[in-house]
């Protein structure tokens, strides 16, 4: 049955959806790069603030040495969750791990669609868009209130807000873990092992902050071993094959 649904979806999705998303996604992201230069250009050429090319390059090189590898690692690693539209949107709007990923997963869970499928991609797009709207509305309120009001927030409220993300990440892992216990266990061992190695300074031979190595091993190790276990269980015993991904 699922094959039938995928097949009917293929025509509409592949013909009316993906080409449109790719055309506009590429155009808006490229336009985004141009527009993002605006504030800097205005400072330098309208207000005459000239740090000098040397200083700008120095700042860029410092930042690129930290972020450069993530320009590639993050889109590649998060793509299977976000899908084509979600990837364009998430990397234009930022706040990926802490906002876009959770929102897309929450949307797919609530709509009972499987991540990675065509319906999953469409629902993930809605989730990412909702998170963008919520984020921009709250930031706009924040910027209107201004720093004088925001800095009045009691210290314990700030401390509490800092603990929201770890709790959300734990919940996200639990959802994945219960849905796919085998792949989840593999992921926990891989991520835990790599973080442990990093704490013991055993990853210090890698250049820069080795977080990118942890992400790559955790994501692609889980994909690789998950696929291996799936293929094996499909070969061993047909009916159990679907259990690995059943929700």
């Amino acid at each position, binding site marked *: 049955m699922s094959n039938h649904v995928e097949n009917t979806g293929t025509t*509409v999705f592949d013909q009316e959806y993906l080409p449109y998303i790719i055309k506009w996604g590429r155009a808006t992201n490229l336009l985004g790069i141009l527009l993002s230069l605006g504030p800097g250009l205005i400072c330098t050429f309208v207000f005459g*603030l000239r740090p000098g090319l040397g200083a*700008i390059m120095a700042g860029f090189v410092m930042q690129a040495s930290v972020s450069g590898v993530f*320009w590639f690692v993050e889109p590649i690693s998060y793509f299977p969750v976000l899908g084509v539209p979600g990837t364009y949107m998430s990397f234009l709007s*930022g706040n990926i791990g802490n906002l876009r990923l959770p929102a897309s*997963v929450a949307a797919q869970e609530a709509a009972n669609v499987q991540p990675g499928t065509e319906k999953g991609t469409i629902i993930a797009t809605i989730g990412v868009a909702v998170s963008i709207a919520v984020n921009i509305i709250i930031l706009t309120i*924040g910027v209107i209130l201004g720093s004088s009001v925001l800095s009045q927030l009691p210290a314990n409220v700030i401390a509490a807000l800092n603990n929201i993300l770890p*709790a959300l990440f734990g919940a996200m892992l639990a959802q994945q873990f219960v849905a796919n216990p085998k792949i989840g266990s593999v992921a926990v061992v891989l991520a835990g092992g790599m973080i442990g190695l990093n704490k013991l300074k055993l990853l210090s031979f890698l250049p820069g902050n080795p977080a990118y190595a942890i*992400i790559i091993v955790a994501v692609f190790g889980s994909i690789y071993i998950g696929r291996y276990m799936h293929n094996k269980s499909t070969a061993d015993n047909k009916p159990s094959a679907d259990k690995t991904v059943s929700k």
Partner: protein
Amino acid sequence: MDYLAIANSPLMWISCGLCVGLVLLQSALFVQRSFSVGKKMEITDAQFKSAIKSSFTASLGPSLAILAGMVSLLVAMGGPVSWFRLSYIGSVAYELMAAGFGAKAVGVTLGGPDMNATAFACGIWTMTLGSIGWVLFTALATPKLDKFRHVLAGGKKAALPIISAGAMCGAFAYLSLDRVFRFDKQTTAAIVGFAVMAAFMIYNKKHQKQWIKEWAFTISMFVGMFVSVMI
């Protein structure tokens, strides 16, 4: 002239507003197409509604956390730039780091007593140039990433959910264990968030309650936060 007068000038608001507007425009285009094609693919209104409800509630907590982190950026870089940078590409940690590097490149401490207009401008340039890589890579390579995903799945459409499941498990194992291994209040928050959500998921395997699917993340998130603060 105080650099914050430049930072908060109408021209900066307009330029930053264009960027925020573009993010919204892209979302609007994609959402409109997702609804129209989704309906043809027999995604029901109820499914769309559930998706909106749950991603809305799940976004509130993280967005408030971003707001809390915005204060330090607002003080150093002014309203328009903070508003634009946090709606666009970066996260609080990235933007503060980039603004800091930019200021350092002209020999100034971000937000320090010697903070000046030149450091402000260099900070903006560093934030902007340092983040172009993400947008440029995804603008050009996203269709290739889709092909790569099909290669990973061995060309079988039925295997694509396995690839997504692996990626999600890996990503959230990294994100949450990174907090667990800090051995402070964040550890408690992550473990409690995990436990509450796991209980919801196991209960719902049998009962399949829709409200749990929509609210479980948000409830787990806030319970984790409250418990971590109280212990």
